[in-house]
Each structure stands twice: as structure tokens, then as C-alpha cells.
């Protein structure tokens, strides 16, 4: 077993233990059930063939929260505004950095949660994006987001390209 596989197992066990601790509210008696459940889940879990950089994930979380806040505020404002004039468009976002696979799926799910964008369809080479209220910066901000996600998945990208 090489080092990377050991690392993956350590991460799995750590995350599952944290989950069990949270679900059981830290009750020490529950670990009698918890430990077998954690080991069973770790064994049965499908293996991921991609790798996230932990530091990049930590840096991404505050950025995501900021985007989620802006997205919620924008939609709330558009919904409450007396006049309902929306500049709704469907645009194509060409993939610049991300390879096909989990990274593209991650971005497609993520843009549903951030300001004004909704992933319609993952086509080869491009992502169809429904934009609630299109403005000048939308396309550029999608490219910026893609670059950030590429940083998250950097290891996987280097391996595949």
C-alpha cells in the first residue's frame, strides 16, 4: 500500500468519526456502535480517483460563503422589487481549465448556489448557464470561478492533462 492510499484511509476515518461524533452528540457510549459503523462505511465507500487540496478547500470556504450571501441578497432583492424586470439570458460558458469529470460536475452544481446563475446542461466543451439578471461582469466571474475550482482540483488536473 502506498502513501497516498494510507492518506486516503486516514481522511476517510477522520471525517466519518467527526460525523459520528456530531450525530451522536458526543455520547461516549455510542462509540460501541459507532466504531463498527465507521469501519463498515469506510470499507464500503466508493473510492474517489480525484484529490482535493485541503488548504485550497479551506481557502475556498470563505469565498463560497461570500458568494452565497451575495446570491441570496441578489435574488431576495429581485423578488421583492416592485417592478419585475429581469434581464434573463441563457449563455454558454466554454470550459477553459477544467477537464471532463468530477471537477466540471462540481462547478455545475456550485454555480446554482452563487449569484444569478443556474446550470442548465453540461454539453461537451461548454456549460449552458441560465442567468437570472445578466450584467457585464457575469461571463468574467464564471471564468474566475472556474480558475478557483481548478486550483481546488489541481492535482487531478495535472495528472489528467
Amino acid at each position: 500500500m502506498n502513501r497516498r492510499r494510507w492518506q486516503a484511509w486516514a481522511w476517510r476515518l477522520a471525517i466519518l468519526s467527526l460525523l459520528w461524533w456530531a450525530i451522536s452528540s458526543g455520547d461516549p457510549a455510542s462509540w460501541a456502535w459507532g466504531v463498527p459503523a465507521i469501519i463498515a462505511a469506510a470499507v464500503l465507500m466508493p473510492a474517489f480517483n480525484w484529490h482535493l487540496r485541503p488548504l485550497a478547500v479551506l481557502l475556498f470556504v470563505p469565498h463560497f460563503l461570500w458568494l452565497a450571501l451575495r446570491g441570496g441578497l441578489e435574488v431576495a432583492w429581485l423578488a421583492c422589487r416592485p417592478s419585475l424586470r429581469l434581464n434573463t439570458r441563457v449563455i454558454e460558458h466554454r470550459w477553459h481549465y477544467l477537464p471532463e469529470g468530477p471537477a466540471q460536475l462540481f462547478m455545475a452544481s456550485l454555480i446554482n448556489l452563487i449569484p444569478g446563475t443556474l446550470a442548465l446542461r453540461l454539453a461537451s466543451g461548454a456549460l449552458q448557464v441560465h442567468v437570472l439578471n445578466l450584467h457585464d461582469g457575469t461571463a468574467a466571474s464564471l471564468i474566475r470561478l472556474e480558475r478557483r475550482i481548478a486550483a481546488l482540483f489541481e492535482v487531478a488536473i495535472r495528472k489528467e492533462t
Partner: protein
Amino acid sequence: MTEALHWLGYGLVIAGILFFLAGSLGLLRFPDVFTRLHALTKADNLGLGLICLGLAFQASGLAEAVKYLLIWLLMLVASGIGATLIASTALACGLAPRQADTPSNTMTSERPAPK
């Protein structure tokens, strides 16, 4: 300190409820299924996040606080993936998104004319 966290928790829960209200208003007012998905995925997720954060501040222990944040995380995953599934299914069923430059006389999205 705990007192202050309690009040901060109440403030966050109330702010979360306001976002849920705005999201529901969007669900009623926006013209088609795609724009309504925007209201659901963004405003409601932010509302739920604020409510969970507010409850986490009032939780009796760290484990309980983590549990509230876990609820939000699972909801984010579910609604992020679910929104695209609903949108692409609607598209595949022939619902065209209403766009700003296409004149439309109905409030709902129109199906393309049958061939």
C-alpha cells in the same frame, strides 16, 4: 458571552426567515420554472444557512453545533445538484427559458411549436 451569542443567534434566525420569505415571494412572482429555481436555490439556501448558524450559536455543545452546520451542508449539496437536474429535465421536456429579448405574452414559459 453566552448571552451575547444567544442574541446573535436570534438575529441570525430572524434574518434567515426574511430570506425564506423573499425566496417564497420569488417563487410566486418569477415568470418560469428556471427563474423560480433561482429563488429556491439561492434565497432559501442562504436563509437555511443563517437559521442553522443561529441555532448553532445557541446549541448546548460543540457536537450539536456541528450537527446544525452538517444539515446545511447536506442541503447545499442536495439543492445544488437538484436544481440542475430539474432545469435540464425541464429543458429536455421542451420548456424553453424565457429570455429578456424574446417577447412573450404569457406569464409561463412556452413550449416550442410541435413539428
